């Protein structure tokens, strides 16, 4: 029960006026940005990171703001998925099945309310999970040496490579690209320049914000140019944003199963929201779809993926905060933000920065309450924004990207770099290469190289040290399994692999 006492202390941090205001701002802005066609959580966070830095707020407050943006953008994504059938991320693809069917039957309002309630449910379950399991994992991870960390990061890379896009070879190539970008600049150990081609501006290396905004936001704008003829989206009528008691009670079991499943999947590296929502939906279909109503506007078809998705988002914070090793593109961007704020996540974070850790855990909950209490009444406002024409919304996203990239170093050179990454990102999308592993490689690459070098320095150049401990061996086995198993499992569970091809937030 120690954890619950700490969690109460965390609420004292989260309920400070500044943090409360930031959680609200994050959720609100995140909902708005996440709702824009094609703009998922990773774009929303990357664009708003430099702005957060510029505002000069303390680390725990900045993190609360970014976490709020994370959840808010997921809910915003649900709004455009349910009402317009344009899922901004792969994880929302499943929500579109029943959510949009409900909209076409004039029941968009209950679908939106269900999405908010299920997200809240997933958030509640997973925050309790976080408070209970994160300290345990941290205690266990204290024993990790550099060799174990190296193996853990290889595991994260292997899992994301094989799960991000459905093609292992393309995922590995994307990871390799990220690792290559990570080596650009002065080598921290020997201080020799690598891949700088005499460019002084490259000595500091590639900033992850510039790369992320280029690869994701700029390439998204280019991609959306392909279907401009839709111009203004026709808005469906959606009715009252409320569900009945009966709808709530029939969905209760769905939400509980979805939350627990989503949380467990979220903790694993590589899997994330996409797999969580697919798995929750297909499980629910098998468990409770007796009348064959799934896919035809069954409210449980909204409750399952939405609760799982939100629970997975919180579950993914556990490896990020206690091991310092993110398992997805979005959490990699959050790690970059943490490092930029001078916070090094790891097993000691909980004991050394209790305010930050428990404050964040509590604010996740506060953010979920905001999502429920404020987004339901405000849905009308958000929906009105959705009817603004594309020629106004998308260039607006571009303008925010400009400011964000410029704010990193106050350097126009970064804007040219961003444009280059935008073109590369578009080519990668077109040819089926996933983008998330690039960001993971870029953010995690330096840490992986550092732990490899430290392990080898300790062993005096003996490579066997990497496989010396039982923990390391288990991690190597997990890495190998994550390369081999997903294609086999996908065939057995009929996990819609092709749908996961749609570039997601994993």
């Amino acid at each position, binding site marked *: 029960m120690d954890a619950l006492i700490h969690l109460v202390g965390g609420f004292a941090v989260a309920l400070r006026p500044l943090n409360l205001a930031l959680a609200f701002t994050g959720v609100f802005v995140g909902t708005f940005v996440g709702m824009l066609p094609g703009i998922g959580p990773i774009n929303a966070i990357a664009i708003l990171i430099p*702005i957060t830095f*510029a505002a000069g707020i303390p680390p725990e407050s900045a993190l609360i703001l970014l976490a709020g943006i994370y959840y808010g953008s997921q809910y915003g994504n649900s709004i455009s998925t349910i009402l317009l059938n344009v899922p901004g991320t792969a994880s929302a693809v499943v929500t579109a099945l029943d959510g949009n069917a409900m909209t076409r039957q004039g029941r968009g309002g209950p679908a939106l309310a269900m999405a908010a309630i299920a997200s809240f449910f997933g958030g509640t379950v997973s925050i309790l999970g976080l408070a209970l399991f994160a300290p345990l994992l941290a205690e266990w991870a204290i024993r990790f040496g550099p060799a174990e960390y190296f193996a853990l990061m290889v595991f994260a890379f292997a899992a994301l490579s094989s799960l991000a896009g459905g*093609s292992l*070879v*393309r995922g*590995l*190539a994307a*990871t*390799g690209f990220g*690792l*290559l970008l990570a*080596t650009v600049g002065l080598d921290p*150990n*020997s201080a*020799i320049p*690598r*891949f700088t081609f005499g460019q002084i501006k490259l000595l500091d290396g590639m900033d992850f914000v510039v790369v992320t905004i280029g690869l994701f936001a700029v390439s998204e*704008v*280019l991609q*959306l*140019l*392909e*279907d*401009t*003829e839709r*111009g203004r989206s026709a808005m469906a009528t959606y009715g009252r944003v409320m569900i009945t008691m009966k709808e709530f009670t029939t969905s209760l079991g769905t939400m509980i199963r979805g939350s627990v499943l989503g949380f467990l999947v979220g903790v694993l590296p590589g899997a994330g929201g996409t797999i969580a929502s697919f798995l929750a939906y297909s499980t629910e279909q098998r468990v409770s779809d007796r009348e064959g109503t799934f896919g035809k506007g069954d409210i449980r078809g909204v409750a399952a993926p939405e609760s799982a998705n939100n629970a997975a988002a919180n579950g993914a914070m556990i490896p990020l905060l206690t091991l310092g090793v993110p398992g997805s593109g979005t959490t990699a961007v959050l790690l970059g933000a943490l490092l930029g704020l001078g916070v090094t996540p790891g097993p000691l974070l909980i004991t050394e920065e209790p305010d930050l850790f428990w404050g964040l855990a509590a604010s996740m909950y506060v953010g979920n309450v905001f999502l429920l209490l404020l987004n339901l009444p405000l849905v009308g406002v958000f929906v009105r924004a959705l009817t603004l*024409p594309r*020629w*106004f919304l998308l*260039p*607006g996203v*571009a*303008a925010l990207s*400009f*400011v964000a990239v*410029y*704010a990193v170093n*106050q350097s*126009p*050179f*970064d*804007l*040219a770099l*961003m*444009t280059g990454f*935008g*073109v590369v990102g*578009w080519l990668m999308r*077109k*040819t*089926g290469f996933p983008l998330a592993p690039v960001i993971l490689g870029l953010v995690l*690459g330096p840490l*992986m*190289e550092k732990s*490899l*070098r*430290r392990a*080898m*320095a300790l062993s005096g*150049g003996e490579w066997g040290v990497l496989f010396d401990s039982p923990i390391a061996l288990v991690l190597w086995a997990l890495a190998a399994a994550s390369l081999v198993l997903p294609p086999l499992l996908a065939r057995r569970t009929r996990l819609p692999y092709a749908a996961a091809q749609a570039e997601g937030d994993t």
Partner: protein
Amino acid sequence: MTGEGAPDGSGRTDRVAGALLAALGLAVGAESSTFDVAFLTDPVGPKALPYLTAAIFVGAGGFLLLRPGLPPVWPGRGVLTRMAGATAAFFLYGVVLAPLGFTVATTLAVGTLSMLFEGPVRKSFGAALGLSVALWYLFVWVLGLPLPLGALWTR
């Protein structure tokens, strides 16, 4: 997807991508071999990670070259022209930002993008101007983030 594009023949895109990846891998390997240090600070040195990425590129590139997957659908000429226009707007924004200043450069770039998304000309640039001024106010006055005024006007 506008449907005006056509799939390429028999995985040619993947073969080209594979060849490029493998070539990039070889180039990375060659460049990495020049990372020599006078005295080794650690047993691994600065070459290990670049060599690893080179190996991944050569391996993945070779695989795609031999076993290409489904071909992508490339957009038609009209869309490609708009994309080239948008890329130019993104790139030129970085070039003109310092001399023209934030508001003017942003109005031009965002207005051009709006037009590429088929916004009406006058409304596009009007909205872009409004947005630039609003962003300037938000970032410079509220958040205290310095944005360039424009070297041309402030000389």
